[in-house]
């Protein structure tokens, strides 16, 4: 009898396993467009934020100001950036999703919007955001032309250096690629590493070099088409980018692949390295006493006939299509887009970002002023590799660029591998 019951259990287990296999088991369908309810569910709306305290996103201040108005309550839920990026699709596809999220503009948002996961907030744009620049508006749309993103701020990328160190070395910021190479040579001859980068834990930083070289050599249109999959990464034009990168490889630290982001920043802060191609967030990454000494110059011009493109990643909010509090969510987004909301955000973010709302008038620090002028003079702006190409392609760029740093002679094989990996990443998603 014991034997029989044992056998019975086994049979039961096998039957259960087979049923689950046959059932297909995982809910993998894309969600259809569901109209949000007209009336809000009671309770507070949730804002999911990727800005931990040291990143100074300004979310607590923004929420406190909104809640003080008595038009509804928003609560903040902060998740570390890496985890946040991994889990955002899970949040958005949940049965009862959080209402609002901090996120990036561009392809990163469109990928979700085109699966009907994001709340259509065209009415917020029509009512509250008519003065926003058209470039930001275009970035905020899904493929159907509906707005799904509220930009709060954008920032710039530049070649950062310490003014006092440049003075000590007796050099001045270059304008063209040739001047940049000469400058790097001079700095190296004085025993200082010309260019700092920390690729061991932040390999994506190398993509800034790829983006900038590509837009300077091949122009903004080719760059965005390449990232959208209309050109291949083994295109001869991409090889030109890598050949230019090879010209500056001797001026990076030899151990760039083994240096961490923090180490690379302290190399710049301590004057062991002279320059760093970085986003405006660099001011938060260096010690306070160095911050005032930072300066930056525009990425050098390579071909004067190519219209100038700059990287200007926009940050902001998206809302879930499945929110049960659409009206409260939209009120909050309208507040985040208002001059009052954006002034709060800008104040919290320091001198490292520019407000998306053109009516925001706060005194900009010298770096922000310079960044603003640089972006305004550009013929076109791009976001950043992962924001333009989609997050899924970032690891493929990381592998290709770090390998090139270590084995520049293998450029053809590297580009072929990159194209293969990118095609696979596009097919997988």
């Amino acid at each position, binding site marked *: 009898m014991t034997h029989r019951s044992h056998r019975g259990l086994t049979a039961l287990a096998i039957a259960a396993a087979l049923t689950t*296999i046959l059932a297909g088991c995982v809910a993998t369908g894309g969600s259809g467009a569901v109209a949000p309810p007209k009336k809000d569910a009671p309770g507070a709306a949730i804002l999911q934020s990727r800005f931990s305290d040291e990143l100074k996103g300004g979310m607590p201040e923004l929420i406190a100001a909104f809640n003080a108005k008595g038009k509804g309550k928003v609560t903040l839920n902060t998740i570390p950036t890496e985890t946040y990026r991994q889990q955002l699709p899970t949040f958005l596809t949940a049965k009862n999703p959080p209402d609002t999220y901090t996120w990036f503009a561009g392809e990163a948002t469109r990928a979700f919007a085109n*699966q009907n996961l994001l709340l259509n907030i065209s009415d917020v744009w029509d009512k509250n955001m008519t003065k926003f620049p058209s470039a930001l508006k275009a970035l905020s749309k899904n493929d159907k032309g509906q707005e799904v993103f509220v930009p709060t701020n954008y920032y710039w990328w530049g070649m950062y250096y310490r003014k006092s160190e440049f003075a000590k070395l007796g050099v001045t910021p270059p304008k063209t690629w040739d001047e940049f190479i000469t400058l790097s040579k001079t700095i190296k001859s004085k025993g200082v590493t010309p260019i700092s980068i920390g690729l061991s834990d932040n390999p994506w930083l190398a993509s800034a070099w790829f983006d900038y070289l590509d837009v300077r050599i091949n122009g903004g249109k080719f760059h965005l088409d390449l990232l959208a999959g209309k050109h291949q990464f083994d295109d001869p034009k991409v090889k030109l980018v890598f050949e230019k990168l090879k010209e500056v490889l001797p001026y990076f630290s030899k151990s760039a*692949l083994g240096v961490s982001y923090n180490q690379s920043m302290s190399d710049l802060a301590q004057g062991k390295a002279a320059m760093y191609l970085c986003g405006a967030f660099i001011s938060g990454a260096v010690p306070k006493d160095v911050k005032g000494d930072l300066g930056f110059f525009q990425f050098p011009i390579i071909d004067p006939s190519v219209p100038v493109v700059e990287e200007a990643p926009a940050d902001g909010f998206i809302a879930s299509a499945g929110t049960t509090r659409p009206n409260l969510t939209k009120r909050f987004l309208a507040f985040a887009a208002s001059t009052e909301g954006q002034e709060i955000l800008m104040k919290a973010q320091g001198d490292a970002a520019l407000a998306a709302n053109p009516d925001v008038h706060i005194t900009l620090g010298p770096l922000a002023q310079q960044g603003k002028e640089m972006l305004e003079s550009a013929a076109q702006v791009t976001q950043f590799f992962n924001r333009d190409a989609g997050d899924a392609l970032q690891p493929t760029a*990381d*592998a290709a660029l770090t390998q090139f740093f*270590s084995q520049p002679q293998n450029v053809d094989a590297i580009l072929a591998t990159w194209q293969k990996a990118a095609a696979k990443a596009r097919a997988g998603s």
Partner: protein
Amino acid sequence: MTSVPLTTRRRRVTFPPPVVFALVLVPFLIEAIGVFWPAVQGISLSFLHWNGFGPATTVGFDNYTSLATDDVFIGALKNTAIWIVLFGGISFIAGLGVAVLFQAERRGVGIYRTALFLPIVFSLVVTSLIWSAFFQPNGVLDAILDGVGLSSWKHVWLGDPSTALYAVIVAALWREIGYVMVLFIAGLKAIDPSVTEAAKMDGASAWQRFWLVTFPQLRNVNLVIVSVLVIDSLRSFDIVYAMTAGGPFHSTELLSTYMFSEAFQTRALGYASAIAVVIFVLAIAVIISYLVRAISDEKES
């Protein structure tokens, strides 16, 4: 007539009481919901192309066939093999060595045992931070090399694909050897010392006493340790992820780290599930073949 009550009585005795069913079924249900169900889901995911939020497409065995031509996957497979051989092999031999060395109760031996066991109490992330500082450019190791006049040996240990994997293995070994040592000491303590003494009386050398008397008696412990080491090797993830995240350019990628980056960075959930299935099959195959051999050995003896 007398046989009828007898059989019913016997039945009553052999039929397990309800509490036994409860004890079997409740854990089984928990296991089914927490382990079997997700595992089956993982297998069914491996036949899809899915990014986690869009519509999924069924692709049959496509994910598995593309694994066969994926250089990164083949590299990860090789690295996992190197990991099992070096990490598993050295942990086993070194763990056994220090256990034999430190099993006898001598004065001060506790200090050595504690020192070797200490790394286990650190979390793996702390371990990887310590070793990253050790290997980083101009870090502890480079400073030591400078100090002994071997500056030319200085190297970007974690940034060079030819050394990065071995550097991570050293860090992982630092932690594992103490653990294996403790398991072996437990096994050695269980051995009757009179057997070894008898061998000594018979004139067996120290090596013969170890190899012919002690080691064979450790068979059951060996079985446990080899299983633990194979499983630990196949699920090694945290230390690699924290030290190199599989880089530079996939050169330290193990199956587990590649699965993670495919699932959560590239968001190819179907492809990552196919890798997970491969890991599962490998682990099961290695362990079952070892168990079968060990059990048949036991039957023979």
